[in-house]
């Protein structure tokens, strides 16, 4: 039996107006995300992978094309519907963490657990990412890696159906980056959350069930890994 498709995107295109320049960020992209898998979107800067992930996560709308979450058509969803989609089903991890500086680690996670329908407690979420002892620290008192783990805890506390990570290690050194990837990997395995990681780091590709390579706004190719690599064997 083939795995269930959680997110289905067809013919997605996105054109940005950046100042006076028009940028075609996505060109007719088709993408499926399967239940429980860990997909790695690999591509150089500007290849369109962030744009794709933002559209899949309901943070942005495509210029054209369709997007389905299970049977729900999100292509024409209004702001309200997209907000509810994100609120109920999607967890995000950003390259720059995007924590609220005026809230502690626990409160940053609470921010999401308070509006989720079936959340784990902030303490559970932070313990899951190995920060059970840093609950009351403000972002400014945490290292980059710790901040990113708070961001992961914030994303997984709602027990999302889809976890989307945009360059989660981009602002971190290799050692810390591996730690963070380990947490994502662990969440994916333990909770079965459909996970997508964006990276420009080829070495990370081995971690996923599938590696989707992007270039110039198009999917160049998709590789299926027979076996997900062990984090210990990866280095960059």
């Amino acid at each position, binding site marked *: 039996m083939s795995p269930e498709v959680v997110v289905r995107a067809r013919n997605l295109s996105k054109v940005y107006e*950046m*100042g*006076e320049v028009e940028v075609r960020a996505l060109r007719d992209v088709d993408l499926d995300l399967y239940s429980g898998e860990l997909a790695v979107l690999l591509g150089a800067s500007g290849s369109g992978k*962030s*744009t794709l992930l*933002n559209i899949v*996560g309901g*943070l*942005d*709308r495509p210029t054209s094309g369709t997007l389905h979450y299970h049977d729900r058509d999100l292509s024409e969803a209004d*702001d*309200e519907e997209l*907000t*509810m989609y*994100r*609120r*109920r089903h*999607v967890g*995000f991890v*950003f*390259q*720059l963490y*995007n924590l*609220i500086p*005026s*809230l502690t680690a626990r*409160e*940053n996670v*609470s*921010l*999401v657990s*308070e*509006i*989720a329908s079936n959340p784990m407690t902030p303490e559970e979420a932070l313990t899951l990412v190995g920060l059970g002892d840093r609950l009351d620290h403000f972002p400014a008192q945490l290292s980059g890696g710790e901040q990113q783990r708070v961001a992961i805890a*914030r*994303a997984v506390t*709602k027990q999302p159906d889809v976890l989307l990570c945009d360059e989660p290690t981009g*602002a971190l050194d290799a050692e810390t980056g591996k730690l963070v990837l380990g947490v994502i990997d662990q969440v994916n395995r333990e909770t079965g959350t459909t996970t997508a990681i964006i990276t420009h780091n080829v070495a990370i590709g081995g971690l996923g069930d599938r590696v989707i390579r992007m270039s110039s706004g198009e999917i160049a190719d998709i590789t299926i890994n027979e076996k997900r690599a062990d984090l210990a064997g990866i280095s960059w």
Partner: protein
Amino acid sequence: MIRLRALDRKMLRELWRLRGQLLSIGLVVATAVTTLVTMRGTYEALVRARGEYYRDYRLADVWSSLERAPNSLESRLENIAGVADVETRVTWYATLDLPWLEAPGQGLFVSVPESGRAEVDDIMVRIGRYVRPGRANEVMVSEAFFLANGLVLGDTIRAVLNGVRRDMEVVGAAISPTHSYSVPPGALYPDDERYGLFWMSEAVLGPNLDMEDGFNEVAVTLAPGANEVAVIRELDRILDPYGGLGAYGREDQLSYKILNDELESNRTMGTAFPMVFLGVAAFLLNLVLGRLISTQRTEIGSLKAIGYTNREVGLHFLSYSVAAVGLGTLLGALGGVWAGDAMVGQYEEYFKLPTLQYRLSWSLVLIGGGISLLAAVLGGSGAVRRATRLAPAEAMRPEPPARFAPGIVERAGVGEVVSTGTRLILRNLERRPVRAALSSLGVAFSVAILVIGMFMFDGIDLMMDLQFRVAQREDLTVAFNRELGIDVRHELARVPGVTSVEPFVMIPARLRSGHREREIPITGLEVDGRLRRIVSEDGRVHPLPMSGLVLSRMLADRLDVSRGDTVTVVALTGLRQTELYPVTDIVDDLLGVAAYLNVNELRRLTREGLRASGAFLLTDGVRDEDVNAELKRAPAVASVVSPATMLESFQDQLDDSLLIAVFFIVGFASVISVAVIYNGTRIALSERGRELASLRVLGFTRREVATLLFGEQAVITIFAIPIGWGIGYGLAYLVVQALASETYRIPLVVSMQTYTWTTAITLVAAAASAALVRRRLDRMDLIAVLKTRE
């Protein structure tokens, strides 16, 4: 314990972090609310107290003076349809011999019922007691006179009543709504040392003045729904044979009119100033909160990304507005209680309304707070909407590099000679011209408020200067207690120390044009007179024409006549002749309203030979004491007024009340300047922190970076100043129009000094704001700033 949601905690911490900015915005709201609550609240207190005073002491609705009528006439007056109560009395001007004063004083003696109280125009005894029946020498004096002369109960006052010296014992001091504003005849302003009211028993006063069983003044109250005009007509008809001088209603009664005018201007100020402040506060709240929330674009994006709805995000950020306005309203109410008490305290001395008391009006607080909140919410929600309209992915991204183009400097071809720093400043301004213009407008409003706060000094200076140095050039104005033959000029000229004498005539008259009429004394001046001149607000001296009337603009407007029209003039003395006079000139004068005629023309009206009601005197300045003493001894002299003394008392009074107002206005305008400039700079710092940090990393000094940041604000401020002058001038025009009354019209002049002061205060406020932000700029963590938003 209440469990706060994470979002609420974030709100509380953010509010604390932004406390400086929110406080400064709150203070703007506070100034607006305080102004509204104080000024409008004071007006309401005055109106309330006036109503109670008039009711409790039964102020008449219609009055009339006459020469003499028998008491038996009273029943006829009571039968006039629409009349409720009638009070007849005797009033008389008498010279006072006050040994402690150089000049003779003057008293208006008014009879009061010997037993019981007057049914109309009662008095309120404030010190001592009411006169007792059968005590011939007892008198109650007006409280102002009592206090100004430091009298004590039991003191003796000597007056010349009908040519006879009498000593009277002061048994009480009183006030009365009929004489709340008591002015010596011929003077413009009260002179409490030399002029007072004297209430004596009618059983005593009448016989002393050959008025036994008679009266020369009547006051009536009207029944509900009565027709005032009809009552006046009937009174005039009945009193005409008895030398009636024309009945008049409250609108023409001096004390009522003055108080009413004062309350009118109080209402105007109490409405206009708060409106200006609220308007400016609303504008600033809109502008500043909008920008403040715009800087939170990334956070708004993050909150949306993790699933918060636009509504939740919107309400969260609107808390900034609510907090600032709430704090401001609270401070404003507190300030209003304090300032309102102080202001009413000032007015208490001035208006003498017994029940005057300030009460904080919560409805005014709510109006002030409500308008501010509306503005804040509109300003805040605009920014929230702009931020939430963006897809979260975009909101979280740094804003795309702004479009820059060669600026005005380059286009003008002077790029080479202008430093990079200057170019950066100018380009930034050019990139957001609307924002720069709005910020400039915000500062301009504070300049404008300073202008309208200070220009009144200029106007009053000019008014005083014109009145007392150009128009009234005499050293003394002497008024006689009856008309004298013209020969009196020679007698006066013989008084040692008097160098020049110009007699004048003043007769009560009724001016009529169509259905409009107005009772006003006509002043007859000599054509070649040099001491008293007719001067308009532009300083021009209007020569008295050989024939025809010269009218104050305000009087001409009331009569709806213009130059060349004909006015019917009825003399209210003597044979009561009626004459037609053309209006030869209309003058935009500043104090009071007047009608002037050439003294020879006036003779045509009175059918009398050359008479004098008084005279203007010049003295040699050496023997002034002798002149005063001599005049004091003359029984025909009712009053001696020195314009210099009048000027002094007028200025004292104005300075007191104006200084307080100016103190408030300067404070408030400074708050606004600081709020605009401080917030503008703070927000610019958060918007451009990265750029400035980059420059620091590249080797710019703190000073150079500060110059870049503050340079922009400096340009905005410098542009604002002339704009503010313009707006201020416009507002000053409106204030002048609104304040114009028959008592005085402040001319619209704004002096160089005012412009200089407004500029200086604005620059100081700008420098203070810059100093506050400079501390933050100096402490900027370069690495941290550069790390964010990679």
